[in-house]
């Protein structure tokens, strides 16, 4: 029913699955950051090669990633059109009245698409290979230094992981309430904007009330099982930095150095 691949964990046993989630998050951040500075076809090619290596190491079929890209195709297309039409410069390749497609515009469009696709794919690799809880505990671990500033890092991470856990449940609930109200003649697709906004109330109120009830129940269930504070709890899943992570670290370093070398060349 749910075809969205971005943000979804897909069980598997590739090398990337065994990496510490912190490693994967940092790798993704470095990668996305570097792409912002990509300035020519060599750097893009280098980045694409690195991505391909990561893709292979997930041991997932390419079809999965294609499904990840598909829903955002229109967004990519939209960006391409914008770049083509509004980049300006010379020489003009093609003109239709005031609309001009220029060579730099075309180059820009291609680069933007490549950058966009690479970033989306890299983030997809992160979420496909990392369960949401692991992402939550990795974020907690990475943000630990903020504790000095009295940021409640443990609470935030627990909130995040519980929120993620309830996503499928709330989606199911939304579907059910939607069907029930449709049966009572609800229609979201007709009328003025105000009318449409009003039409969402029969959907939102029950969803909100239900979520509140769940939250109260969950609080009770957590308290009864000895929950007092997110601080000072032990961890079932300890994050552990291993040999594979060192390997990944060097691979990322290699990518980083190669990237810099190619961009100053």
């Amino acid at each position, binding site marked *: *029913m749910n*075809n969205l691949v971005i943000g979804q964990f897909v069980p598997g046993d590739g090398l990337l699955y065994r990496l510490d989630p912190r490693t994967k998050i940092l790798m993704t951040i470095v990668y996305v950051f570097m792409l912002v500075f990509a300035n020519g076809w060599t750097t893009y090619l280098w980045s694409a090669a690195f991505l391909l290596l990561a893709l292979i190491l997930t041991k997932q079929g390419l079809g999965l990633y294609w499904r990840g890209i598909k829903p955002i195709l229109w967004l990519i297309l939209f960006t391409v059109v914008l770049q083509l039409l509004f980049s300006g410069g010379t020489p003009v390749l093609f003109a239709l009245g005031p609309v001009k497609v220029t060579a730099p515009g075309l180059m820009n469009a291609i680069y933007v698409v490549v950058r966009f696709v690479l970033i989306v794919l890299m983030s997809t690799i992160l979420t496909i290979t990392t369960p949401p809880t692991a992402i939550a505990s990795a974020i907690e671990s990475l943000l630990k230094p903020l504790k000095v500033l009295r940021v409640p890092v443990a609470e935030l991470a627990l909130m995040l992981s519980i929120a993620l856990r309830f996503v499928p449940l709330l989606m199911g609930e939304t579907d*059910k*309430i939607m*069907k*029930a*109200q*449709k*049966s*009572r*003649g*609800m*229609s979201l*697709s007709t009328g003025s904007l105000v009318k449409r906004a009003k039409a969402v*109330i*029969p*959907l*939102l*109120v*029950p969803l909100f*009330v*239900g979520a509140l009830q769940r939250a109260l129940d969950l609080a009770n269930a957590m308290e009864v099982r000895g929950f007092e504070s997110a601080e000072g709890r032990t961890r079932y899943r300890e994050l552990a930095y291993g040999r594979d992570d060192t390997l990944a670290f060097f691979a990322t370093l290699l990518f980083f150095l190669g990237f810099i070398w190619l961009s100053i060349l």
Partner: protein
Amino acid sequence: MVINIEGLDFAYGAGKQTVPVLKDINLTIESGKITAIIGQTGSGKSTLVQQLNALLKPTAGQVVVGEQVVTSQTKEKDLAPIRAKVGMVFQFPESQLFAPTVLEDVMYGPLNFGASQKEAKEAAEKALSAVGFDQKLYEQSPFNLSGGQMRRVALAGVLAMNPETMVFDEPAAGLDPAGQAELLQLLKDLRDSGKTIVLISHQMEQVLALADQVVVMKDGQVAAAEAVDTLFSRPKAWFEEQHLDLPETIAFQKEMEAAGFTFDHLAKTGADLAAQLKGQLDLSKLGGDHHE
């Protein structure tokens, strides 16, 4: 109004990722009767009833509701008349209430289907009184009511649309015995007032007490569709195959038959069973002793 399901297949998803749920369903829901739909969890009961008011459209085949035909090609905008004819009460319907007052919540359906404020109010009041809801509470917030009262409001919300057919998914779930009995009586009253009732239930006692017809689903297919008496005359082994329990009355009757007692008809209630048993017992054998 008769509902006909003809050669219906249904699968979730599209393209390569389809999950078939219903296969080759042919059914007639007879008007003015209570049709129970039973089967193990996951057998396709809920998916099947959602075809009845086109919340789900068939992948192949068609559903004919009165004059209207629903196929995979039917457009969303043509479905309103079907939704008005077939009301759907989901499991735990009280979790769909939303309006500031009971009356406004119940008026929601009629208003959506084009009733005027006045008509909708009349329909709502009629429906609320039919489900036995206290008139003093009409202007209350539905969220301040007890669970049982909230469920009545939710039922009234569907009833107020005055549908010809009403579909109930486990309407008595979560109620205590007294609440369940009241709800079952309400379903009977609705049928007797001329409505067609479709009932999904795991409670075999309910099915026996209420249903005229029973549809047994197994793995997305119809395993049986017949009168309630015919169904429960089937041997115990057949029910085990479908992973279904027998109603206690029927199970007891079958045990007694195995022990040599005879019955001239299927007992629907304990009282009926007792009446048929009485003549076959020699209570003088009891004597004065107490059979501990």
